[in-house]
């Protein structure tokens, strides 16, 4: 245990090897920089000294056993943890394009529009498919029917759902299968044209065929979006991510190119987790 808690210090040189965008200077398109981040629920610290840079227009996967803090970190990136009583960042900062997103002046509504999120449990609204995708646009004040029509089609096409639902856009999103519902949620997130898409175990409730579709989708989306995906599925991380970060007990153990992590990890723990010896 003690050795695990000391891991950040050994892990931090690895994160320093990143092509770090220097703080203050204009960063790359929608890159995320997490610096010395501590995070706590009440008095219980769940993330310890996380240092991580997430490159733009690439897929970064967070892996690690349950309770290691990867979802918590993901939810920090669009300040979803604001909703939880007592949850707070106790140290460090998260910068997106060089802007500290926890500064008092930051508009959290605008942040969440730019940093979209797809949840573990697909959560379509009890509305029609069309209204689900149009929701974010209407919230943003778009009223022109033609604009919304266009965006709905574009988003559904991006989410590879258009052909399956184009004839029943006005039936309830609840009538779709589990995989289709999750792709509907992805389409809904894409409709507001975010720069970053966070995905919290998007395939955990899906069958292999639906999973394959979503993974294919993720590979396509990375040409336009910065994607961060939390997954329990090692193969999934291997298949669709460019970079992989391994978390354990609230520490970032190792982050590197996915091929490197899966072929030749620097840390023994990473190797043990990936090969299935624990976790």
């Amino acid at each position, binding site marked *: 245990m003690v050795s695990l808690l000391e891991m950040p210090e050994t892990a931090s040189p690895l994160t320093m090897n990143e092509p770090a965008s220097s703080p203050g200077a204009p960063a790359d398109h929608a890159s995320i920089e997490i610096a010395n981040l501590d995070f706590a629920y009440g008095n219980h610290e769940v993330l310890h000294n996380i240092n991580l840079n997430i490159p733009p227009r690439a897929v970064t996967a967070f892996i690690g056993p349950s309770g290691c803090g990867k979802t918590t970190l993901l939810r920090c990136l*669009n300040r*979803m943890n604001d*909703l939880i*009583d007592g949850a707070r960042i106790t140290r460090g900062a998260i910068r997106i394009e060089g802007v500290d997103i926890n500064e008092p002046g930051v508009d959290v*509504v*605008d942040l*969440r*529009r*730019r940093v*979209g*999120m797809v*949840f573990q*449990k697909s*959560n*379509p*609204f*009890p509305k029609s498919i069309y209204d689900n995708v149009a*929701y*974010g646009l209407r*919230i*943003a004040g778009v009223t022109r029917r033609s604009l919304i029509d266009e965006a709905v089609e574009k988003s559904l096409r991006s989410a590879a759902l258009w052909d399956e639902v184009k004839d029943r856009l006005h039936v309830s999103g*609840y009538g779709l299968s589990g995989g289709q519902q999750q792709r509907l*949620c992805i389409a*809904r*997130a894409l409709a*507001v044209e975010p720069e970053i898409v966070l995905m919290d175990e998007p395939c955990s409730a899906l069958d292999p065929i639906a999973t394959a579709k979503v993974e294919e989708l993720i590979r396509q989306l990375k040409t336009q979006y910065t994607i961060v995906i939390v997954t329990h599925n090692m193969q999934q991380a291997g298949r669709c991510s460019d970079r992989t970060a391994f978390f354990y007990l609230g520490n970032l153990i190792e982050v590197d190119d996915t091929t490197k992590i899966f072929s030749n990890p620097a840390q023994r723990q990473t190797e043990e987790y990936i090969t299935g010896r624990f976790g």
Partner: protein
Amino acid sequence: MTNDEGMTKPEGGDASSSSFVIRHSSFRPGHSSLRRRGRVLERTTFWLFRLATYFVLIAAAIIFLDIGIKGGRTVFTSKPPFINLPFLTEPPQTLYVFEFEGKKMALGDREFRQWKTAHPGIEPDASSVAYSAGGIWPCIVGTALLVIGSMVLALVIGISSAIYLSEYSRNGPLIRLVRVAILNLAGVPSIVFGLFGFGLFVIFFGWNVSLIAGWFTLGLMVLPAIITASEESLRAVPQGLREGSLALGASKWQTIRKNVLPYAMPGILTSSILGIARVAGETAPIMFTAAYAMKDEMPWQVAKFTDFVFQGVMALPYHIYVVSSKIPQNEYTERVQYGAAFVFLFLVMLIALTSIVLRERSRSRLSW
């Protein structure tokens, strides 16, 4: 009893069967009195619980049959249209009972005056029975006005505070105090609400006995139920819908308005309809604040528009109270007592039925 075989088995065998025998050994012959006592106890408790359960049925049957039969005589007629429309559409009148040429006459106020003009010079020795002729139309209208006003008030305040409690507030000492206050408010007897309304609205605010004083008193009374029901309905909306909406760049209020409240509304409204039944039924809160025993004008017959909310009204429960306890009872008063109770019961059942239908319909429409 089917275990008798097992009991007579010789001891021994494996551990489980021996424990089986030991457990039942006390029921062997020689302990038969104990066994009989146990059986009697079983039968007694069974019948005690069963009778207690059926007692409810008997009580309900007696109440409904009594009101149904006696009230039905007033409300229904043997001739078409089979419903006693004057009883439902006319104001109460004084009944005059007198003997004329050997016949016993029972005439309402208006008919009595017509009769007198038709028989000039005759001054019958009539005894009068208050409110026992005519109908209960102003009471129905008054109750409807009281219910609508107080429910609008209670829903606006109740839903607003439920939204605050469920969506905005963080659990602190102040919020716990608010919850204690809601619980306490729910436990206050209705007569205390009546006296409170009388003291604050009628006297201190100088609203006199009026609709608005009744609205506030009844609204306050039903507020805890509305807040509790609304908060439950709001909490029943899955957190995923809130997060999904917020993650799309919706503000908190946009999320509540577009993606939480619409789904909680059926639940809020159905439970509120049960609140309506309570508001419509209470006598104590309105007897000092809003209800008149008798009023000749209908509520819309006011001189100025602004007078509307500052007028007292007749109300069904108060009318039942008045005709049942404030005037001398005789064979002529029963008609209006049971008739009013019948109509009242019917209206409350109608409201409850609406609530059930609404709930079933909204349940089938919304599911997650």
